[in-house]
């Protein structure tokens, strides 16, 4: 990204490029510094203390030692990654199917594209309240439907048993995340050059072949970057689990972020909570770096960028 020399000379009145750039960025930077960077530094510091409401003492690595010697914590980490992989995979698959459907040349597609938006544009909490109602055993839709089709005997309270609560939360998380993925994929599909399809079509390539060999490779950069964003958001997904189950029953839906919130905010053990927050940041940073490395290779492979 280089400025044309013409601009450079014309701009040489007043501030230098660098000074002007930093002037323009400084308000954004100030916000991030106060609301993200400083709290992050504080979190790291607190993670070495036993801070509670009462006060704080430096205790070295004790919080981390406690965490890493606790099998329960490793369960939580494992559960969080399982939650992330399963939910993101489903969002990508359902989103890809949805985008393909909405991209088909059929009457009514404009309306369908609007109808897919609500879960994305309303407050997350409100959609989740709807799901919470549907999951209840006595008069909830899901239990009712399952009985109707004879899949279960009697009522089932999906949020009351461990396995069903976990997968119920996954379904809700997929529901919240899918519309955005769908719309981004749809947008990417519409950006694919028509010439490619026509050339393939002239050569006799079928629909499925064109999808596999043109659509997918062409939108791959969007799929890959959407997957990373979605993975980070899903990893840190708080409201959905909190409203549905608060991490229960018996910890079955406790992901790292829920665990952190419970320890730090609900029981106000700030030091221990901070150590968990640091672990989250470290895990996500490692995951993102590994992923970006992979993304770089994919981009090179498909010749994007």
């Amino acid at each position: 990204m280089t400025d044309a020399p013409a601009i450079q000379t014309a701009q040489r009145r007043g501030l230098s490029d660098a000074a002007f750039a930093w002037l323009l960025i400084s308000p954004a930077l100030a916000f991030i510094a106060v609301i993200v960077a400083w709290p992050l530094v504080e979190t790291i510091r607190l993670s070495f203390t036993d801070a509670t409401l009462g006060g704080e003492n430096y205790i070295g690595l004790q919080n981390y030692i406690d965490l890493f010697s606790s099998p329960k914590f490793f369960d939580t980490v494992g559960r969080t990654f399982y939650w992330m992989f399963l939910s993101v995979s489903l969002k990508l698959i359902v989103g890809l199917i949805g985008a393909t459907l909405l991209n088909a040349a059929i009457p009514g597609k404009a309306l369908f594209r609007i109808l897919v938006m609500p879960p994305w544009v309303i407050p997350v909490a409100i959609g989740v309240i709807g799901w919470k109602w549907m999951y209840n055993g006595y008069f909830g839709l899901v239990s009712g439907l399952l009985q109707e089709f004879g899949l279960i005997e009697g009522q089932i309270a999906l949020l009351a048993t461990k396995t069903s609560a976990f997968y119920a939360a996954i379904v809700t998380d997929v529901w919240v995340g899918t519309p955005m993925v769908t719309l981004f994929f749809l947008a990417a599909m519409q950006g694919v050059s028509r010439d490619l399809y026509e050339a393939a079509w002239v050569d006799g390539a079928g629909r499925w072949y064109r999808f596999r060999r043109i659509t997918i490779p062409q939108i791959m950069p969007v799929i890959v970057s959407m997957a990373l964003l979605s993975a980070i958001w899903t990893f840190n997904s708080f409201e959905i689990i909190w409203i549905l189950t608060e991490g229960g029953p018996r910890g079955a839906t406790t992901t790292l972020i829920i665990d952190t919130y419970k320890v730090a905010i609900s029981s106000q053990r700030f030091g221990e909570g901070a150590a968990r927050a640091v672990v989250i940041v470290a895990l996500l940073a490692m995951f993102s770096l590994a992923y970006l490395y992979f993304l770089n290779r994919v981009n090179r492979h498909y010749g994007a960028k």
Partner: protein
Amino acid sequence: MLIERLSIWQKIGVYAATFVFLLFILMPFIEMFRVSLRPMSHLMTADFTWWSDDFSWQAYRDMWKTVPLLGLYIFNSIFIATAVTVLTMVVVVPAAYAYARLEFPFRALSLGGFLAVNMFTGAVLLIPLYRVLRSLSLLNTYWAIIIPGVAFLIPTGIWLLRSYLEKIPRELEEAAFVDGASRMYTLRRVVIPLAVPGLIVVGTSVFIGAYAQQFLFAITFNNVREIQPLPAGLYEFVGYQDVTWNEMMAAALTGVLPVMLFFLFLQKYLVAGLTAGAVKE
């Protein structure tokens, strides 16, 4: 066009699959609407039924009495999201311009730093954030919900808007410089007017983010009822004994209606904007 033509069976297949897909997306809303129309006593006594003849709009009248501040909560949600959007855009526009046009030291590094903010949600940083807001005496004010909201939306805003600004032809700015315009004047009078479509798209995305995610900051940094946004306010339908589900659903649907109508008008920009922002680097 011929290439896109579907046979009648393919068409039926696409419609059927689209129906199933949209049913999954819209089912909770259909169900919420159904619940909002039924009296509480019937909801809780019978097993699940698809249809009943007791539908009425009663809950839509009663909800204002059960939760007297409901109107205020609906307003707060929209007000907070609007304030977050305006503030975010004020901060994002100059920053995005710098990244789109200017060459400076630490450019890539600082942009990477902004994007890394995406790795945190407020939930990770709640403890020190609480202290920061307390020492600025912002707890229990609108600002306690607005300011963290802005900070976490800045990175995405910069990222999206940057790709828009890069598409504005440089020649126009050059012409302004040649005519002796200052940098600030050029940004205000040349670049921003040209970027209006992009600003609408990015502004809408920011608004969606701000509107959708107020819950966490609201329940953690605020306990003044008059300031609560709708998602937190809905919890007042949860009583000591039981939840008035029908009124809660009625209130939720009524509360999001104004924003849904607003998006109905903007949806054209939104899909078009995603194309431009997300696909072409």
